[in-house]
């Protein structure tokens, strides 16, 4: 009698070593792991969403053609492609628009190509100057002096029905 009882009390050990306890442990951890993994998807998505979405480039008006004198450089502003309605003033970016001649325009991002500070146009010196680390650019956007590694980034410009339009673009980032 004793021997029968003790045999029933002992768990039978299968040859491959997976006990009932081991099996249940694995099942519990797997279910917990799967639910955690599933839950992680929207959380990680919130963190990295901006890497995965790409914004289409939109054409934005910046002024009538006759507002811009030939040979002059003017500051213009336009609304970004991805602005939400709670962006407030930050919905807009700026650009330096230069009218080269009657028919040609060129637009530069205000961001210095060194580390992004806004460059100022000095009209009578005909130079763009950056306040941060001493970068200077000529009126055509090429580097005149200082640490910037390359010329000012350009925005695409076109004229439609007498209105000058700029194509939105991401913040210009200088890469290695």
């Amino acid at each position: 009698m004793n021997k029968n009882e003790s045999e029933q009390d002992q768990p039978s050990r299968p040859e491959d070593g997976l006990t009932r306890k081991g099996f249940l442990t694995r099942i519990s951890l797997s279910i917990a792991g799967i639910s955690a993994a599933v839950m992680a998807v929207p959380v990680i998505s919130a963190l990295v969403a901006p890497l995965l979405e790409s914004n289409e480039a939109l054409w934005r008006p910046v002024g009538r053609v006759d507002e811009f004198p030939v040979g002059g450089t003017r500051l213009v502003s336009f609304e970004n492609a991805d602005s939400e309605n709670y962006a407030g003033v930050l919905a807009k970016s700026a650009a330096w628009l230069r009218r080269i001649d009657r028919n040609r325009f060129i637009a530069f991002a205000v961001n210095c190509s060194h580390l992004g500070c806004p460059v100022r146009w000095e009209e009578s010196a005909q130079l763009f100057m950056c306040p941060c680390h001493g970068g200077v650019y000529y009126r055509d956007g090429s580097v005149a002096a200082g640490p910037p590694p390359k010329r000012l980034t350009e925005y695409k410009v076109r004229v439609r029905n007498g209105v000058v339009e700029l194509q939105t673009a991401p913040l210009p980032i200088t890469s290695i």
Partner: protein
Amino acid sequence: MKRFFGRIWHWLDDRIGINDILKPLVDHPVPPRGLWTYVFGSATLFMFVLQVVTGVALSLLYQPSSSTAYHSLEFITYQAKFGNVLRSVHFYGASAMIILVGLHMTRTYITASYKFPREMNWISGVFLLLFTIFMGFTGQLLRWDSNGVWSSVVAAQQLGRVPFFGKYLARLLLGGDTIGSASLTRFYSYHVFIIPTFIFLFIALHLWLVFRHGISELPKAGRPVDPKKYRKWYEDYLKKYAVPFWPHAAWRDVLFSSIIVILIILFAWFKGAPDLTTPPDLTYIHTSPNPDWYMVLFFALFALMPHRIESAAMTIGPVLTVIILFVIPFLANKGERSPMRRPWAMFGVICVFVFVLSLLVLGLQHPWSAEFDAKPLPVAVAHPANPDSSVVAGVHLFYSRGCEYCHKIGGYGGTAGPDLSLVGNRLSEQELTIRIVNGGGNMPAYGGILTQADLQALVNFLHAQR
């Protein structure tokens, strides 16, 4: 009455076990000497608590939305009762925390407390240092004024220099491909939720490790750490010499931290936080972005670094620094701890202090920036006393063509380029012409910008300065 509260206390203590938890912490034995040098760790902790408390208070007043953040900052600074003091305490607390973290790290390095068995104390500490710097950076951005917004742009640019992933890292930071509505929301989440969670976890780990391994004893020359014997030796040392943490050692921590908090309150009350600059508007470009003082040394580094190595320095520099910091306990986890026996380590500490202080001073002066506020040069400043019309024309051109932004004459102008008050003594007219036309170094070439008459007037003017 006293008996009544005494009974409540005993009931709580019995059910919760408060004394069972606190007593070992409060009584744990610590080495008896050098205790004033050990206050910086606890001071950093108290600063963190101050930041959390003032941060929570600020979060009751602050609006983390791009369109309203600046207005809520104005509300906090000018209207909320004690709002300005609150914001100022949070600002000075941040500065204090960065200084104290640096002092604490310096002290533990000088006493080589990172050696066996306390390597993980050092490693968790390095993580805390990085989190603290990131908190300081994101905190400035939350002011979301003109400075804050442009500082985010600069940060994104620095991340952009990382090879392969740069653009993605920049987009991750900004929450999009431009600075916009998502950026501030992100910085708020980083600063208030994500990084503080990690800081809490790592502080818990760091404090547990201090308790587990004990406070390191003051090093002594000729008594190197031997991992095989140290634990036993330390136990015996404590048995012979140790004092209980409370009150013998702790009173210094409490006193020092209280003094720091009082100093911060005094600074906050009398000096106040940095003024808000203009509202955030990326189309307003007449702004000179400036980070808070503890970031200024990087600002100086980027201005002064040789241009061609910049991308490499910006990406490899931080990574290398962090790797070196993590690796220290593994390179030298045994042996002499005394600073007297580690001359190269002490030399390194002095170098770091010299570099950091010089970059800080230079960054605050920023002599490489154009002086956009320069007033037009008065004719009276020019030599000779009665200048002819060509020289007078040169005086006006010196300002209007932007020369004065970078060059000084008679005390007027900027410091990015050499002082030209006596340039007539150094350069001939031909040399002046060549320099102006061709530029060179950090000077643009004016050849395509000046007319012949302008050039002649400038050269006449400059040559007369002697």
